[in-house]
């Protein structure tokens, strides 16, 4: 059974429609990507799933439960952890506070993420524990955003442009971290532009254009489809 099923959703900002029958499914333990050029609706898909910009039509089910019209805090509670585009760290909370303020283990994970485990994953955060969120570098903010989402112990971790604007070494650190999370069985939905890294990391891919899926397949199929990469991803 799928962990997350998105079926034919339409989403609007005011009167302008952005998603047109968008589909997506993720099984437990899978790493799935969402790719496409800027402005095609990747962030909007995530916002719809999270209940931040609710979809007007269609179905969104998480572990069988209909979550399409739940407010975002309830979506988070059923087990979705968001690492949002632009990181959105709380600037007026310290690093440690950013991590523990919203921490929870609502689904009774047997080995829950704790502050200690997060700083073990990102040792830099331990050094910065008492710094305010707005005193961090972009890379540190990104690690903090990942750690903050992990501390809600989600069934599904969602990352929107997690490596955008980061230096190559820091990017590598983020990719390595995601690889480690995958090893532990964490289900992940990733939005990113780095096709190489995504092909190595993920099981399956969705390519979208103008709010609908135009291609889907596993990493092998994506490697074998240079025309898709060229046409929809611009590489």
């Amino acid at each position: 059974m799928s962990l997350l099923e998105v079926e034919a959703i339409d989403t609007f900002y005011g009167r302008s429609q952005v998603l047109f029958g968008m589909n997506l499914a993720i099984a437990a333990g899978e790493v799935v990507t969402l790719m496409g050029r800027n402005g095609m609706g990747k962030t909007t898909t995530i916002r719809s799933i999270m209940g931040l910009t609710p979809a007007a039509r269609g179905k969104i089910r998480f572990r069988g439960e209909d979550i399409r019209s739940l407010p975002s805090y309830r979506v988070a509670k059923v087990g979705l952890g968001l690492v949002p585009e632009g990181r959105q760290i709380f600037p007026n909370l310290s690093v440690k506070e950013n991590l523990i303020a919203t921490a929870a283990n609502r689904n009774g994970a047997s080995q829950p993420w704790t502050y200690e485990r997060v700083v073990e994953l990102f040792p830099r955060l331990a050094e910065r524990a008492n710094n305010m969120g707005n005193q961090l570098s972009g890379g540190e903010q990104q690690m903090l955003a990942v750690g903050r989402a992990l501390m809600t112990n989600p069934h599904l971790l969602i990352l929107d442009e997690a490596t955008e604007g980061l230096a190559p070494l820091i990017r590598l650190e983020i990719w390595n971290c995601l690889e480690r999370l995958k090893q532990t069985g964490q289900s992940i939905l990733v939005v990113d532009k780095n096709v190489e890294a995504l092909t190595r990391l993920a099981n399956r891919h969705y390519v979208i254009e103008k709010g609908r899926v135009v291609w889907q397949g596993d990493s092998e199929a994506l490697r074998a489809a240079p025309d898709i990469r060229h046409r929809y991803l611009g590489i």
Partner: protein
Amino acid sequence: MLLLLFEQFLNGLQIGLLLFLLAAGLTLVFGIMDLVNLAHGSLYMMGAYFAAVFTQWTGNFFLGALLALPAGALLGIVVEVIALRTLYTRDHLDQVLATFGLILFFNEFARVVFGAGGMAIELPSWLEGQVMVMPGLPYPSFRFLIIVVGLACAGFLYLLVQKTRLGMLIRAGASNREMVGALGIDIKLLFTLVFGLGSALAALAGLMSGPITTVQIGMGDNILILALVVIVIGGIGSIRGAFIAAIAIGVIDTMGRAFLPNMLGTVLNPSDAGTLAQALSSMLIYILMAAVLVLRPAGLFPAPGR
């Protein structure tokens, strides 16, 4: 002279702390939910009426106050759930109009329920006297108690906001409400709690000023204006800013009224000095606000991310 100065300073501190109790709730509400709530002054007034009624019932000011606080919190929560929730997504002008309507409602409500005449709150006799705050300076016991309670509340709020999970969420909510929700926190519930807390503090300020002034219709209206000045100077959403600004305004206002006439009297003739001093001292805090806004448009301690 020095004693007089110190006494006026204490008066200013006492008024400043009452202002702080009112401004604390106001600034949190404005900071987290982006809601301008003019009716906060009504919760101050209702707190005073509750205390007056409960004091009459129980015959004891402290029991009355103890009952008035939860009543004030409860009233705030009811107002929030019934009236204010619908206003969060509206613009500030709608909020001002709607909450101004609430002021009229509460003033009318008080007239019908408690009568137009106002009520006095009777203090126990041991609070009617004076304490020696230092050799040669007796000070009214009750005003001194207000200072102690005000400082204790400030300390409590500091600990709550800086050291607890709830406080972290309040600060996080002031900088990025949507993200707090997306991480699994019911921001509406959080806000209702904060609103209840703010209402209890407003009620506390009202019931403590009741015995000094009298409890009357519209008593919250003037002090609300001052509290708005306080949160603008302190930075919207900042408890620390509200504390510093409230004390500064209390002290400057009191000192201005007490000493400006004499100071101006040394250079002007007495009647001119009198009029000018009166005009100046009532303007003093607005001059301060203008100066702060020129130098720091977001106030002294703006919550980042706004």
